[in-house]
C-alpha cells in the first residue's frame, strides 16, 4: 500500500502551475510515475500532495522550431524512440532511449522525469548533455531556461524549484558534420541501471572527416578529419551526470588518431568521482569509463 497523499488532477498547464505554486514546497509533480511510485513506496520522500501532469495537452509532442528540436515535458521515452525528428537530428538520444529500463517502463516514463529525478545514472542525461540541451522550467511567475550542464546540483537535487515544472527540453540542431554515440554498461543487457553510461559527440571540420570525401571511417583509420568541437558526458560515475571537459579539450583541433582517442579516454576516466556500490566498484567504474569513451569515439562512424 502506498502512503497517503492528496492527488490533484489539473486539466491544463496553467492549472498545474497554479496548484504547484499554492502547494509549494509540499506539492510534487507526477507524470509517468515510474520513479515517483517506487520512491513513495520505499519512503524516499513523502509529499503531502502530488500534482498529476501526465497527459497535459501543452506538454505533448516533439517539434522543430527555429533550429531547435523541442521535446515536450510530457513526452515519454517510447515516443522519443518512435519519433522521426529525433531519429534524424538526435539519434544519440534514441540510442540511449533504447537502453532505458524496459518497454513497459518506457511507455510511461518521461524524458523530463528522467532529468527531474536526477539519478546520477539517468540514461537521458549523457546524450542530452552532449547535445547542449536546455531545460525549460515554467512556474506561475514565468518561464526560464537552464542549460542541462547547470541543471543538476547533486544526487537527486536539481535547480528546479518545487513550484516549477519542466515544460520542455530544447536541443539545438547539431551541424551537419556532427556525430554522436551512446554506450552503456549495466549488469544485464536490458532492464538494468547503468554501471556507467556515456555519450560522446564530435563536430568535424567541414568535409574532411566525412564519408563523402572517403577520408573518415574504419577504412582509413580515425585520422581522416579534424575535430572542431567535442563533447563527452558520463553518468553513474559522479554525484551527477558530468561533462569530461579536459578529455574534450584533448580532442579539439586533432585528428582522431588512436593515441588521441586513448588520451581522451584516460582523461575522461580521470574526470570521474566514482564510488563503490551494489552495481560495481569505484575502480571498475573508472576502468569501464575509459573503455566506453574509447569505444564510443572509435564508433562514431559505425551505425548505431
Amino acid at each position: 500500500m502506498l502512503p497517503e497523499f492528496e492527488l490533484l488532477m489539473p486539466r491544463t498547464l496553467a492549472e498545474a502551475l497554479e496548484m504547484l505554486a499554492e502547494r509549494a514546497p509540499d506539492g510534487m509533480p507526477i507524470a509517468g510515475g515510474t520513479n515517483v511510485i517506487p520512491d513513495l513506496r520505499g519512503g524516499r520522500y513523502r509529499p503531502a500532495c502530488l500534482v498529476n501532469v501526465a497527459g497535459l495537452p501543452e506538454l505533448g509532442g516533439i517539434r522543430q522550431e527555429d533550429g531547435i528540436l523541442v521535446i515536450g515535458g510530457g513526452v515519454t521515452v517510447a515516443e522519443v524512440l518512435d519519433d522521426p525528428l529525433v531519429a534524424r537530428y538526435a539519434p544519440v538520444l534514441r540510442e540511449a532511449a533504447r537502453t532505458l529500463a524496459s518497454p513497459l517502463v518506457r511507455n510511461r516514463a518521461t524524458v523530463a522525469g528522467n532529468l527531474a529525478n536526477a539519478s546520477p545514472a539517468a540514461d537521458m542525461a549523457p546524450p542530452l548533455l552532449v547535445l547542449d540541451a536546455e531545460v525549460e522550467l515554467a512556474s506561475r511567475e514565468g518561464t526560464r531556461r537552464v542549460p542541462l550542464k547547470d541543471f543538476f546540483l547533486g544526487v537527486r537535487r536539481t535547480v528546479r524549484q518545487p513550484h516549477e515544472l519542466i515544460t520542455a527540453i530544447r536541443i539545438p540542431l547539431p551541424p551537419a558534420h556532427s556525430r554522436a554515440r551512446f554506450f552503456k554498461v549495466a549488469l544485464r543487457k536490458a532492464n538494468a541501471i547503468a554501471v556507467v553510461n556515456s555519450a560522446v559527440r564530435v563536430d568535424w571540420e567541414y568535409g574532411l572527416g566525412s564519408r563523402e570525401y572517403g577520408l573518415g571511417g574504419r577504412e582509413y583509420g580515425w585520422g581522416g578529419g579534424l575535430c572542431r568541437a567535442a563533447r563527452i558526458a558520463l553518468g553513474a560515475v559522479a554525484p551527477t551526470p558530468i561533462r569530461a571537459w579536459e578529455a574534450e579539450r584533448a580532442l579539439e583541433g586533432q585528428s582522431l588518431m588512436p593515441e588521441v582517442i586513448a588520451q581522451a579516454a584516460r582523461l575522461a576516466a580521470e574526470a570521474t568521482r566514482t564510488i563503490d556500490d551494489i552495481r560495481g566498484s569505484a575502480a571498475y567504474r573508472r576502468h569501464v569509463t575509459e573503455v566506453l569513451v574509447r569505444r564510443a569515439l572509435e564508433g562514431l562512424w559505425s551505425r548505431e
Partner: protein
Amino acid sequence: MQPKLITLTINGRTHQVALKPNVTLLHALRDLGYTDVKNGCEKGDCGACAVLLNGRAVNSCLVLAWQADGAEITTAAGLGTVDHPHPIQEALADSGGVQCGFCIPGIVVSAKALLDRNPNPTEEEIREAISGNLCRCTGYALIVEGIRRIIESKNQ
C-alpha cells in the same frame, strides 16, 4: 484523502468505482476481480502486472488508478480465455513456455503490444519486447519460441 468516482473500461466492460488517490491501477484491477493481473514486485521491475492502457503495455503497479480515469484497459484475460484462447496464449501453452505461470499474463500483454506494432519481429525484437517481464522459472527460451511460432504459423 477522499475517494473519487472514476471510470475504467476493462476488457470492454465499464466499471465506475470510488477509489482513494493512493490506489494503484494494479490494486484497482485485482479488487475488481481481474486477478489475472499479477502482483509481483510493485516497483516496475517484473512486469507481472502488465496491462494494455489505451493500447500501450505498461506496468499497472506504476499507474495511479486516478491517472487511468476514462482509459481503456486490456488484461491478458481480456485477450482470450481457456475456452477461447488468443493465439499468443495458445502458442505459449503449446510451446511449453508456461511453467509456474505467474509471469505469463504479463508476457502475453507484452507480446500482444509487440505484434500489434510489428507483426514480423525478429528474435532479438521479441527478446527486447519481453525484457521488462521476469520469469523466475527462467523459461525464456520456450517463451521466445512460443512467440516465434505464432509468427511462423501466420507466415505459412
